[in-house]
Every structure is written in C-alpha cells, then in structure tokens.
C-alpha cells in the first residue's frame, strides 16, 4: 500500500534498530514516554520493543482520549440519553467504556436508549437534519485532533439554525496533561529521560506548545509520527539528544507537523470554544485550563445547558489501576485485575477498552512476553 508500507519496512527497521543499539550507552537507561495511544498501539502491534536494546524502555503516556475521560462524564452522557431521551451520537471507542454501576453506553443502548455509533461529526449533523423532532447530541471527545471537526459542525448547525442539534463537549488539551506528568515525575512518580511527542495533535497545534518541556523540565521532546518507523526514528533522535546532553524540541514528523501548526484550525477552535477553568482527568486529577467548553456565542448548542443532569457520584471499580497506568507509574501487568477479571471482553477500566489504551494494546498484542517481574505470561494472560 503506497505511503503506508514505506513506513513499515522491515529492512529499514533493522537498520534503525542497529543504529539505536550502536548508539545507546549500555551504562545508562533510556526511559522514553510515548505520549499517545497511537504510539503505544504501533509499539505493540509491530513488536517495536523487540527491536530495542534492553536498556531502552517505552513508558506509556496518557494520550488516549477515551482513557482519560472520567467516568462521571460517561454517566452524564448516559443520563442525557436515558432521562432526556436524546439521540446520542458517539465514536465507537466509547461504547464499551465502563460507567458507574457496571453500566456502559452499549448496555444503555441494549436497554432501549437511542445511542448511535458514528464515524464523523458530520454523521451526527445528518441525523439531526433528517428528523427535526429528534434531539440529537454529539458526544464530542478527544484532544486537539478531533476538536476542529466538532467546531465545524457547531458552526454549520448555527448557520442552519438546526435547533435539535447540540454538542456534549469533552475536548481536552495536550500541553496541560504533559505538564502534570512532568511536574509529578521523579523518584516518587514516573522516571523519564525523554518524550515522544503527540503526532496528530501536533498537526493542529504545532510543535511550539511543547517548548516549555525542555525549558522548564529539562527533558528532550521529539514529535513522533504513528507509524512504527516513525516511533523508531524518534527513539533514535531522543537517544542522540540524551547522549549529547542536548535538550530541545525536535520534529521527526515533518511530513505533517510544523512549528506553528494548522493556524486555520486553531482559529476555528478559538472562535467556537473557550477554555474551562478546570477539568477532571482520569488518572491525573483536576487540571486547570486543561479542557474546552463551548463558547458563549454557541451556548444554544451546548448540550450541558440544554439537558442538565444532576451530578452523580461516579464510582470507579475497586482495584482498577487505570489512573497509575495513565501516568506511566504502572505497567498494565502491574494491575491485579489485568487478565484476571479485566479483559477486552469484560473491561473494568477504559485502558482495556480503547484500541489506544495501554492495557488493550498489551493484552491484544504482547501478553506472550514475560512480565518485568519475570512472571510466567500464562498467569497473566491465558484465556
């Protein structure tokens, strides 16, 4: 497949692996956090870790939008569909994420709620246009990558006067999450030597917003694409920065990312959304200015205002270590639930649901490996 196979070439991978092995200093460790679930997925799916020297380890970051969404927001979405009877449009990844009391959107749908899986924000708009008597709510989630498409449908809905359409906005921002991870890193938290920076997110926001990382925290960043060769080349670039004692933001993903990003998309986001004072993140807690709400000019299309839901007390499942996994403090296999009661068929936490979640990636592609505690893989994995 053109423009895909080139980035998955086995011969090139072996060449890069050789270069990393040759340049990595055996006397030290390289703990590289891959920020995005897309990276995690590529690392496991293509077996990238197998090609790395033993002293280079990938640490999984929080960049899985489904995983960081707190349970209370899923509860709220279910309440909109069940109590207010709206048609809730959602991306497929969210359907099986556990909500309070063992509920999920999928179970709510089976129970009669009108919940539709969509591929694009435009699909939600089309459903609203097709039936004026139906209140249609788009369950919008994601980092900066998926925010502009939500902005577009809000603009179109206002222009068309589509009174039966609204958006339940859960868009979050990448830099505050990264800042929190780094601020809590160290002996008590996750130990990091470098960051593989977001790929698709950076096509929108550019590489400039990460410049605080080397400046404030003294860690190198390489913006890394999602293909396995991108991840390997970025790892090599980080190894070189670390070896040379350099610390800067470099861009491996030059075919899509510039320093300033997509200015048009940024303008659209600034027009339609406003920063929230704070927002709850699963695993990271309540972070200031870390999420977006719908701007006042578009308040008529804000589902949170149109369909108010009494805030409930979300109950996380006891023993679920998603929060620690999301901060990079724990490996999926460190969680007692992993592979015992928590599997993709019966997920206890969001990290086991999303294809971008670290637990799902590890379970689906990597559970034949011995765990780092040296346990037999079957104890943590056989069906």
């Amino acid at each position, binding site marked *: 497949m053109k423009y895909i196979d080139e980035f998955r070439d086995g011969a090139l991978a072996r060449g890069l692996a050789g270069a990393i092995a040759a340049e990595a200093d055996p006397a030290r460790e390289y703990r590289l956090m891959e920020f995005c679930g897309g990276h995690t997925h590529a690392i496991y799916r293509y077996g990238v870790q197998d090609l790395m020297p033993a002293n280079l380890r990938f640490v999984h970051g929080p960049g899985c939008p489904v995983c960081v969404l707190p349970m209370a927001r899923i509860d709220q979405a279910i309440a909109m569909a069940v109590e207010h009877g709206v048609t809730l449009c959602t991306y497929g990844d969210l359907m099986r994420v556990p909500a309070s009391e063992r509920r999920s959107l999928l179970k709510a749908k089976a129970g009669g709620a009108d919940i539709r899986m969509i591929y694009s924000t435009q699909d939600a708009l089309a459903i609203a246009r097709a039936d004026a008597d139906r209140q249609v709510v788009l369950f919008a989630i994601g*980092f900066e990558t998926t925010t502009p498409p939500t902005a577009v449908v809000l603009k179109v809905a206002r222009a068309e006067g589509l009174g039966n359409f609204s958006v339940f906005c859960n868009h979050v921002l990448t830099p505050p999450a990264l800042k929190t991870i780094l601020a809590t890193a160290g002996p008590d938290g996750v130990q990091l030597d470098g960051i593989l920076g977001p790929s698709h997110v950076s096509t929108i926001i550019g590489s400039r917003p990460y410049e605080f990382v080397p400046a404030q925290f003294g860690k190198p960043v390489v913006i890394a694409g999602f293909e396995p060769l991108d991840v390997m080349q970025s790892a090599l670039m980080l190894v070189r920065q670390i070896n040379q004692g350099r610390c800067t933001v470099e861009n491996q993903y030059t075919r899509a990312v510039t320093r300033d990003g997509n200015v048009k998309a940024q303008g659209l986001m600034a027009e339609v959304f406003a920063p929230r004072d704070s927002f709850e993140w699963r695993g990271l807690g309540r972070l200031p200015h870390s999420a977006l709400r719908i701007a006042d000019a578009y308040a008529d299309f804000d589902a949170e205002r149109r369909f108010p839901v009494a805030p409930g007390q979300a109950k996380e499942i006891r023993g679920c270590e998603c929060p620690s996994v999301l901060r990079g403090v724990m490996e999926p296999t460190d969680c007692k639930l992993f592979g015992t009661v928590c599997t993709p068929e019966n997920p206890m936490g969001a990290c086991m649901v999303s294809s971008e979640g670290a637990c799902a990636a590890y379970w689906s592609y990597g559970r034949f490996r011995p765990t780092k505690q040296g346990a037999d893989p*079957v104890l943590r*994995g056989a069906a």
Partner: protein
Amino acid sequence: MGASDASRPRYAGRLDLQHGAVDMSHGSGGRAMAQLIDELFRRHLDNDLLAQGNDQALFRPPAGRIAVSTDGHVISPLFFPGGDIGCLAVHGTINDVAMCGARPLYLTAGFILEEGLPLADLARIVASMARACNECGVPVVTGDTKVVERGKGDGCFITTTGVGVVADGIDISGDRARPGDAILVSGTIGDHGVAIMSKRENLGFETEIRSDTAALHDLVAAMIAAVPDIHCLRDPTRGGLASTLNELAQQSGVGMQITEPAIPVRAEVAAACELLGLDPLNVANEGKLIAICPAAHAERLLAAMRAHPKGQNAAVIGEVFEDPHHFVQMETAFGGNRIVDWLAGEQLPRIC
C-alpha cells in the same frame, strides 16, 4: 412449503412482484401464504423433493457418516457488492457442512420476513438462492415462512440447515492440529467484511470491493483428493482469520505461529482497513477456508488449492507448535512478534 399440486388452490390474481409487499397474511397459513409459496418460493427453488409437497422431505441416506449444520443469516444490507442474503445463506451453510470433508446433499430454508418487505426484493433474494443452489448442485428440499410485524425484523432473515455425507476414512476436525503441521489459507482475507462495511457506512470508496461469498465444497473435494490426511478445515467467517485460528488452537490444545507477509490481502482491502482502523485479520470472509495438514503434505495441498478457481491465491501462512498457553503469534512484516487475538466485541473505528 406444503400444498401438493392436487390440492393447490386457485388465486384471484397473481402476486404483484413489481409493486407488492409482504403483509401479515403471507404468514398466516391461509391462501395468501400458499400463493406466496407457489408463485415465489416453489417457482424458483423447484426440485423433486420439494415437490413432494409434505411438511418434510423424505430421502434414503447414502453410505457414510451424515454431517448436519445450521446457520442464521441476518445481514444488513440485504444486497451488497458481490452477493446478497440469498446466495450467502446457501454458501454459508454448504461451507459449514463441507468443513468436515462432507459432500453437501440438501438444504432446508426458514424465512422470517418483515411486514413491508417489497416482494420484488424477496423475489430477487429467492432467485439468487436458487441460482446458488443450482451452481452448487445442492437443492432446498423443505422450508418455512413466517412474517413478523414491521419494525420487528430487518427485512428478511434466513436460516438454512445443510445435510451432507462424509466418506469413510476422512477425519477432519478442529481438534486435530498437531505440532509441526502447516497452516494454509485459500485466498485473500477480509473481502466480505470490507464490502459490507463500505455499503453499511456509506463510505464512498473509488474501487468497489466485492464480497467473496462462495461455496467451497468443490474446493474441499479437490483438496481431499490430493491430501486425504487433512487435519482441520474451517471457514474464517465472523471474527476473521484471527478468531478462527484461536478457535482451532484452543480446540487442538496447540500454539500457532503465522507470518504476516505470507497472508494474502488485497491492496484495496488493506487500504480500507487502514482508513477505518480495522485489522484485516479480524474481518469476516464468506468464501475462504483455513486448512491444517502435516507439513510433509503442505506443498501438495497448496498445489491442489491453487489449481482450483476458488484457491488461486492460496498460501502457506504458518505452522502449528506446542504451546501450553495456546497463543496464536505472528511475526510482523516489520520484524517483531505479536499476539493475534480473538476479536473483542465488535470492530470499532478509532477516533484519533
């Protein structure tokens, strides 16, 4: 499909196959149902056993062991590139019967029709079934029709049951994979699932991807003629190649190692999966089979498969080994190794 020739009632007018629709009376057991059976089902599916006109078909069993399989078909959309629910209901059950090495003999068909289904669509579906039956040499010998109220069905559901006979000496079963055996696949994977998804989600691909729906009993016969000692056969339908290999690994109590570059995938299917965030290994097939045989016979089996029109793109994709965990592992084109897992839930598009 009752009513013998002698007792067949006369009807006031012919079924309106252009503009008519299924209504509740077509399932009520009265004259309307009899007319639907006569003018639509019998007209297309006619054969001697069906013409017996009883509530059952009577035949003398041939020598050998009898294989029976049943399969419900609930596909949406009813018509898709490369096929429709009618031919799919014939192929799917013939394949299930054939996967133990049986020669399929007869089919039965149960229809659940939703009130409002255009008779023209039903006629198209039944004609397609009849065509598939004729091509396969396997007739529908008895059947049933029910009608459910509008909103309680999805146009048309078809359940088919197949009966076949297995010659003595053939022992093909999912629990017979042994360490050292070779794993073969009969052609490109993922075609059916992607064809359905592209229609269902209104994804306007430039190249039309067609379902691979096909009956494989003749391919199986050619394979058995070449290598009677085939250990396992299975068609990787729902859940795709990945789930089917896992089923066989569990059932036989073995592990499997496959090689990604050896697995045949059409470029357009690979591209569509890439776009949708799907893995072709998890996507359904309706005209492909997996075969496991002793390594010493693998080349002969592969040659026999490639010599058959339905096995032209056949390939050896891996081998069976001893593994108490029963993992299916794959060496990726990239050079790493990973697990090939059961499909969890439904394949969902990714969002970021």
